[in-house]
């Protein structure tokens, strides 16, 4: 086992024992599984609109909870180890900074993605046993979207974690990032549009830069591209792009954001004082 995989493996084992991981799995995974199960079973009884409503609830939960969970659990990965002098000891062994950093990224990615993915798997298995038709296209799209959104926020979290010296500061910045991105989904954008202080193109560009908005629009688009609940910005975006192009973009763009921030975080980690 090379050192990168060793770090990833140990980080994974450490996370699996942590209280935050148990809460993460129970609250988030359980909630998603519940929504999925409810959506699949309800759809046979209530028809299309019932499923849309339930999945919309699911999307709202995912958009809000997943980023903040990833940020607050990951952001202390390096800054917390630095605060508690764990980094000082662990890096006194011949492990390269590249192996340490990317090993942590890999381990933490598996930790945050696995419960979310497993929740969907459980939901699908439950649906099969209930005799429901499994919406495979939705399942695969959601897997891709959750993978890409996990990548985006994991990269941002590692960037914050390696840039900031104290874990308290890292937590504060995480909340700030989350609130800003949350604000710039439709609610803030609608008010900007209403006030007409910015051009429509700029508002759409802001929306498309936000991985949370991209996730939300892509998640809605597969179910009901003409439904008004998606909001005016989302409607405009889906009018601008074909659904296929936007789905591909919505998976690739957050991964790009995540990789970009993770690489930037690594460069900072390598260039700055380690402890």
């Amino acid at each position: 086992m090379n050192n990168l995989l060793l770090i990833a493996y140990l980080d994974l084992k450490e996370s699996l024992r942590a209280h935050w991981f148990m809460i993460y799995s129970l609250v988030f995974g359980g909630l998603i599984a519940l929504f999925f199960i409810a959506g699949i079973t309800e759809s046979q009884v209530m028809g299309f609109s019932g499923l849309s409503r339930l999945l919309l609830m699911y999307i709202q939960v995912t958009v809000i909870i997943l980023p903040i969970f990833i940020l607050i659990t990951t952001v202390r990965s390096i800054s917390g180890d630095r605060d508690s002098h764990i980094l000082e000891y662990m890096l006194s062994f011949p492990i390269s900074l590249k192996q340490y950093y990317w090993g942590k990224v890999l381990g933490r990615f598996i930790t945050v993605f696995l419960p979310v993915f497993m929740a969907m798997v459980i939901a699908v298995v439950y649906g099969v046993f209930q005799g429901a038709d499994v919406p495979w296209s939705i399942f695969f799209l959601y897997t891709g979207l959750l993978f890409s959104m996990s990548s985006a926020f994991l990269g941002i979290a590692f960037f914050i974690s390696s840039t900031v010296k104290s874990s308290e500061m890292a937590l504060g910045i995480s909340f700030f990032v989350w609130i800003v991105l949350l604000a710039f989904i439709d609610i803030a954008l609608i008010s900007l549009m209403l006030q007409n202080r910015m051009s429509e193109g700029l508002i759409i560009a802001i929306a498309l830069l936000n991985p949370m908005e991209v996730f939300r629009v892509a998640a809605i688009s597969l179910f009901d591209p003409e439904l008004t609940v998606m909001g005016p910005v989302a409607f405009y975006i889906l009018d601008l792009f074909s659904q296929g192009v936007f789905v591909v973009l919505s998976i690739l763009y957050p991964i790009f954001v995540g990789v970009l921030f993770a690489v930037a975080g690594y460069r900072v980690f390598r260039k700055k004082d380690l402890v």
Partner: protein
Amino acid sequence: MIRLNNVSKTFGTTCSLDHVTIAFNQGDAVALMGANGAGKTTLIRLILGYYHPSSGSVRIDGRDPIKERTEILKQVSFVPQLPPPIKLNVGELIAYVCRSAQVTEAAIYQYADEMRLDIAPNRGKSFFKLSGGMKQKLLIAISLAKQSAIMIYDEPTANLDPQARDDFYRLLQHNEQNKLALFVTHRIEEVKTIVNRKIYLDLGKVVSDETC
């Protein structure tokens, strides 16, 4: 072996190490002393490649400890003053050390035995849940098992009882020949029988360097 050439390290407006030029050679057993904030820890961290010097250079066997950290750290053992709250269990920590530093488990067990620490019943326990003394003994056993040419101990006996301190110094005497050992200490009485050089730091400068 280790050469610091005109090294300064500042943090904001605070100068922690001020144009220090010093060399440590094979066979040196050095007591690094000084008041809190004198620059001892900064000096150690520069040697370990954790800090980038603000000016000057640090070389270990002619190599840069930042650019060639893995090669340098293969020959360095380090024990911090306070064992960090590592969340791995003891078995995982030992696995980390063995795989990253090519140390054998048998060697760690052997030195742990010499330090009167029985690893086997504690293997599944989280490292941070061990008592302070047990943690320090394990870190000392790991440092000795690594058989490094450079051994750095930052107040290593702070958590140890008198018996464990005696065990530690006895083991060191057997293991420090032809090596370089650096001890950050406030208690010169404890290490005076094993050091052959005493360095005093104050306000980031070397104020005294005595061979004994």
